[in-house]
């Protein structure tokens, strides 16, 4: 057993209102720079939809992540020698047009235009060339366009959803969408790191943050293509790759990442997970439908004395072990089993987790009135029995969150619905009947667990939402360096001027 610690974020999708506050907080803090204008380390996309960059999940095109070939795990992008051969031109690299061309408006024209008969306007210009731009697309161009034929129906994760259901999802009465906020998943088996010919990308053992060493990056730009989530971005101005850093400077000072901290819906949780690094290779190589289960097994029980001993042996402080015991991530992922990694089939073992969204019940129109496709009173009960009537197809959620394994989605949905039923009866009716308890039991929950899930879902205070232990930076390697030499090197920003071609 080789115990390491990980800071993991958890997204409760039922709570996301798609306001993009998270994206803006991140942009203002990290990517409001030349060359980074088009980057959204945190983005929120409407699903079903094509996402950002467009159709990023289409790995036949972008060749991201790992694939299981026989008994070997291979990068979909390249073999080692193949990578060196393709270094002069990377066939799978997305271009700027797959994201969008960043733009601003020429506001000065409003002041400087000569007097005339027409009102001056601020025309859009490209942030790269400065030329006038006919804007064709932009960040979140497809925001809230659930059900549209251009965006939603081109969602790669709709693969395998029956034609009839897909057609229904296009009908106005049955339109459904949810939001999917995405940051770097700080994977246990990162494809970006494996694909980097220079070895510039590494994972921090203390907290699992995956970082690009900008001094070692040589712009071979393999990481951009290899990341199946398209969360490594190439800065066209500095000639270096950049990615979400999980706000490690904030974490190290006890604050939650900016996206999580600013989240209006309070959908985000942060917590420590202990994992067994020795189990990673096996867990990344099981057949698709077992991936989620294998992934869960890599995460260790922080109350197990053996695990605690292993953690201490690896130099993990007691404050971190304690944080792992109080971790909301551990509760949602392991204890309650309702949070899942995004696209486990990419086999990078993503360490950010999602609680899938519940959806309204499919409705039909009868006599010009919307009618729920279920017996009147007991909608949730019926939904519980007939998950297939949910507007978001189980198959779709399974494609997103469980590598296609519908059974896992059903289990998670049952738990979420059972908690909803239980709490509704308790708070609205004032009593919980036997039926409800039956459903709770069927979902594999006890009343205590249901209450705990409810409480952490709806009423957490910030200390319960973000359990961030002390980072003990005083013990980091820099402590062995001359403090004056060190002083000149730290801080955000470029240590050397980032001009091109220097």
């Amino acid at each position, binding site marked *: 057993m080789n115990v*390491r610690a990980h800071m993991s974020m958890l997204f409760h999708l039922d709570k996301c209102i798609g306001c993009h506050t998270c994206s803006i907080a991140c942009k203002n803090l990290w990517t409001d720079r030349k060359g980074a204008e088009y980057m959204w380390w945190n983005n929120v996309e409407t699903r079903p939809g094509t996402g950002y960059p467009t159709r990023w999940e289409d790995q036949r095109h972008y060749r991201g992540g790992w694939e299981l070939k026989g008994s070997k795990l291979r990068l979909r992008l390249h073999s*080692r*020698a193949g*990578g*060196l051969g393709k*270094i*002069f*031109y*990377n*066939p799978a*690299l*997305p*271009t*700027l047009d797959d994201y969008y061309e960043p733009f601003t408006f020429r506001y000065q024209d409003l002041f400087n235009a000569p007097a005339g008969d027409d009102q001056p306007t601020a025309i859009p210009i490209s942030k*790269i*060339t400065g*030329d006038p731009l006919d804007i064709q697309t932009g960040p979140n161009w497809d925001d809230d366009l659930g059900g549209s034929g251009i965006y939603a129906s081109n969602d790669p994760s709709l693969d395998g959803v029956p034609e009839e259901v897909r057609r229904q999802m296009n009908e106005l009465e049955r339109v459904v969408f949810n939001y999917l906020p995405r940051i770097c998943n700080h994977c246990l*088996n*990162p494809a970006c*790191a*494996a694909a980097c*010919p*220079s*070895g510039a*990308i*590494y*994972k*921090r*053992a*203390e907290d699992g943050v995956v970082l690009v060493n*900008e*001094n*070692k*990056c*040589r*712009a*071979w*730009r393999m990481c*951009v293509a290899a990341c199946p989530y398209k969360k490594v971005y*190439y800065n*066209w*101005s*500095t*000639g*270096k790759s950049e990615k979400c850093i999980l706000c490690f400077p904030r974490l190290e000072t006890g604050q939650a990442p900016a996206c999580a901290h600013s989240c209006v819906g309070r959908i985000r949780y942060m917590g420590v997970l202990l994992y067994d*690094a020795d189990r990673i290779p096996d867990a990344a190589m099981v057949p698709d439908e077992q991936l989620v289960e294998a992934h869960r097994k890599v995460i260790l029980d922080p109350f197990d004395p053996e695990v605690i001993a292993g953690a201490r042996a*690896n*130099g993990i402080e007691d404050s971190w072990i304690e944080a792992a015991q109080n971790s909301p991530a551990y509760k949602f992922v392991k204890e309650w089993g309702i949070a899942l990694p995004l696209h486990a089939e990419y086999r990078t073992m993503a360490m950010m987790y999602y609680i899938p969204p519940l959806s309204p019940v499919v409705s039909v129109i009868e006599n010009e009135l919307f009618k729920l496709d279920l017996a009147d009173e007991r909608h949730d009960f019926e939904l519980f029995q007939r998950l297939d009537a949910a507007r978001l197809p189980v198959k779709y959620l399974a494609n997103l969150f469980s590598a296609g394994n519908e059974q896992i989605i059903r289990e998670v949905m049952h738990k979420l619905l059972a908690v909803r039923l239980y709490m509704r009866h308790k708070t609205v009716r004032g009593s919980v009947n036997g039926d409800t308890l039956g459903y709770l039991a069927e979902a594999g929950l006890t009343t205590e667990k249901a209450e705990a899930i409810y409480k952490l879902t709806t009423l957490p205070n910030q200390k319960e939402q973000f359990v961030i232990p002390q980072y003990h930076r005083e*013990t*980091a*390697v820099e402590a*062995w360096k001359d403090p004056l030499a060190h002083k000149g090197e730290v801080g955000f920003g*470029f*240590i*050397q001027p*980032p*001009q*091109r*071609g*220097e």
Partner: protein
Amino acid sequence: MDWNTFFFSIWPYISLTIFLVVTIYRSILRPFTISSQSSQLLENKRLYWGSISFHYGIVLVLVGHLIALVIPKSVVLWNAAPLRLYLLEITGLGLGLWAVAGLLILVFRRVAVRRVQVVTTPMDAVVLVVLLVSAISGVLVATLYRFGSYWFTGVFSPYLLSLATFSPRIDLVAPLPWLIKLHVINNFVLAAIFPFSRLVHIFTYPIGYLIRPWQIVLWNRKIKAQKIN
């Protein structure tokens, strides 16, 4: 001092000194600036034709030069049979032309594509021009002064060796036609601008990728050294 003395016994040393000192300085003290400065994100299609042709052409031609320099005898022996000489010459010329074609596409792309234009520095332009002179003069030498793979070993292998031993033999190169001289002088220009340009990316060719572990996990703390209590 005549021009031959300057260009063939002084300029090479100036050029190589700049090349070595600045490259080493930059690699060690300014690593952030070292990058191939890929512009593929901004333009994809022309780069495909330009970059692949240019790089495969130029790298293989360079390797050819290197082989002739390091093992001249074996090259001469190989060339003893006319068929093999023709084969080598045609291959070399083909690669050279391939590189020139690629280079022309790259230059065209830098000039014509607006997005690439804005990320082109003056140094990028200088590099492309110098490379173009190098490649075109090289191809011309190969066609006008036949069987370079034959005479290179007799002229340049000993000349470059004499440079390395600090006793430059100008007599070897002074009588050569001006075109060949231009090719040589220009390549020392290339060496001199090398460390100031994106060309430093050549020295960071990540050959270690063939053997490094897939994943790199770093501990921030020195656990072992830290076991105090």
